[in-house]
């Protein structure tokens, strides 16, 4: 029985394509009004999972509800109340902005269609270019149109699949402000992304790799649960140092970050010993809090080890 404030509540959801298990027994709960970040490497099953949530695909195993509707049997109801923004721009490039919105509003049988279209144009600042063909828009404007289109029927849940890929930083920031505003108004948002700054803007996160959910929680919880110790090394000759560190006992991951090197491992004592042995006179070392990125890279490497 799902708690009343859970918009998404699924357990053991699995999807196979032929012999390949793309999503493997994923459990996930998302609360109302929450912005839930969904992360994972390419091909980890994020899109497939989202497609099951919005009723496009039927899970092969597992149970669950989305907006209180059963994932297997009430896909039609789910579709009516979910806004889904696909990874690739998927509105009609040979229709104008207004025509696209009008079409979607008709499909959802939105009451007072003309009013709803005008309102969504105004809200997203698209009113002055409403007669422009969607195909002529830049990436940022296409993304705004897509967001406007998937909000037109006032959905209760928004599923966004890499909405900010290929969008410039300013447009990304505006997009996130909009998402936070929507969430404050009670809309629940599940969003996939590859950007760490975006991940940190989410209320809670889940990390999916090779179809398996590896971790979830708030940013702090995710970082803490990884129990990863990270050292930051600055100085000269970092490249030879990185080569030197790799393969030493206790060193699990060496990642260059600009002019610094992040060295991480699960065993603080052995990691400290390894760094002490490898460092040269020109190196400054200090222990830092592991970043989300350190944690995710570590999770990904471990997941790969388990799968190979």
């Amino acid at each position, binding site marked *: 029985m799902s708690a009343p404030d859970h918009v998404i509540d699924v357990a053991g959801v699995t999807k196979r394509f032929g012999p390949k298990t793309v999503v493997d027994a994923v459990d996930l709960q998302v609360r109302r009004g929450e912005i839930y970040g969904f992360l994972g490497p390419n091909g980890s099953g994020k899109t497939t999972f989202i497609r099951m949530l*919005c*009723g*496009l*695909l*039927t899970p092969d195993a597992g149970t669950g509800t989305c907006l209180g509707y059963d994932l297997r049997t009430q896909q*039609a109801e789910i*579709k*009516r109340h*979910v806004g*889904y923004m*696909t990874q*690739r*721009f*998927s*509105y*009609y*490039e040979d229709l104008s902005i207004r025509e696209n919105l009008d079409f*979607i509003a008709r*499909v*959802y049988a939105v009451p007072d269609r003309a009013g709803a279209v005008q309102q969504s144009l105004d809200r997203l600042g698209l009113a002055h270019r409403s007669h422009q063909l969607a195909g002529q828009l830049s990436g940022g404007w296409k993304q705004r149109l897509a967001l406007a289109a998937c909000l037109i029927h006032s959905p209760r849940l928004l599923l966004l699949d890499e909405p900010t890929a290929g969008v410039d930083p300013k447009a990304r920031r505006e997009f996130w402000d909009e998402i936070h505003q929507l969430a404050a108004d009670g809309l629940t948002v599940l969003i996939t992304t590859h950007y760490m700054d975006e991940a940190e803007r989410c209320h809670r996160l889940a990390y999916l790799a090779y179809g398996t959910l590896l971790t979830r929680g708030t940013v702090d919880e995710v970082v803490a649960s990884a129990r990863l110790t990270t050292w930051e090394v600055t100085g000269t000759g970092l490249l030879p140092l990185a080569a030197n560190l790799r393969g030493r006992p206790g060193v699990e991951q060496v990642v260059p970050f600009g002019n610094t090197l992040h060295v991480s491992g699960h065993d603080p004592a052995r990691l400290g010993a390894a760094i002490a042995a490898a460092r040269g006179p020109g190196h400054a070392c200090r222990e830092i809090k592991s970043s989300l990125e350190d944690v995710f890279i570590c999770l990904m490497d471990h997941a790969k080890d388990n799968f190979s």
Partner: protein
Amino acid sequence: MRRFTFHRFWAIVLKEFIQMKRDRVTFGMMIGIPLMQLIIFGFAINSDPKHLPAAIRAADQGPFARTLVAALKNSGYFTFVREAATEADARRMLRLGEVQFVINIPEDFSRRLLRGERPTVLIEADATDPAAVGPAMAATRALAGTVFNRDLPGPLARLRGTDGPVDFRIHAHYNPENITQYNIVPGLMGVVLTMTMVVITALAITRERERGTMENLLATPVRPLEVMLGKILPYIAVGYIQMTLILLAARFIFRVPMIGNFVLLYAVALLFIGANLAVGITFSTLAKNQLQAVQMAFFFFLPSILLSGFMFPFRGMPDWAQALGSVLPNTHFLRIARGILLKGNGLAEIAPALWPLLLFLVVAMAIGVKRYRQTLD
């Protein structure tokens, strides 16, 4: 470096070959289309159609009549499949298209022949397709002079006369002036509808998938059936506009005599349009991109022109080609359209061509809808 260099050029050539190899459908078409053309043009098409079905209405069973029938049979152009008892019977066979010719041997044929009166043998032909009738008629005329040479020996030889002992009178029904356009223009309707309906539907659905808009559409409450019907309805309207244009051109430019019932024609056309749309939908589920969709449509279009009796007489083709042609909806629609327009056929007369069309529609739609559904999950 403005000079043409071999290694850059060769890099492009190699890349092109790799891509060609990857696109299986295109590769298949490059082999398949010439092969198909080779078989159709090389083996199936025959501009000198023989063994045409004919009926005989013989009021005289005498030896001369038997000689005449044997001679016609031996010419290779006629296969006598039926006997007509009455004139009305003969007409009905022609209208239904069961026979191409009816040979009428008059009552006192032998007697009048021996009297040297040059009796008339009336050959009634279904001349809707002049190309099918022409060679047979020419051969028959040539026969007239010599057919009774063995039956009229010695003193009787004088009966052979200069024009031959019998007068073959040919009555070309439905198209007495043997005007090719009368046959081609109504047939064009079937060809144009086949081309546009199959290509456009295949393209319209493939485009949605190729551009990714299909995924978006299916995430809305729209049902797959609503998508499909909604997408094909505009093209049904387009099909009717095309049909109307061709009919207007037939009437006012080509002056084709049209005596049939247009309401019936428009009603039957819906089946035909539906059958082609179903083929288009099936292709759209197979094609990965719009180019492949066009290629598949072409693969269907080619036999629809060449094996349907549009360009070449259907009965002139070998049996296997006729069997193949009988599967195609265009073959049946051509018979229906020509039958209604030129012969004034009604529902009863077109029924033999109607049910294969209906069968094709049902089967193609079932496959199309089934495959279309499978592409979603």
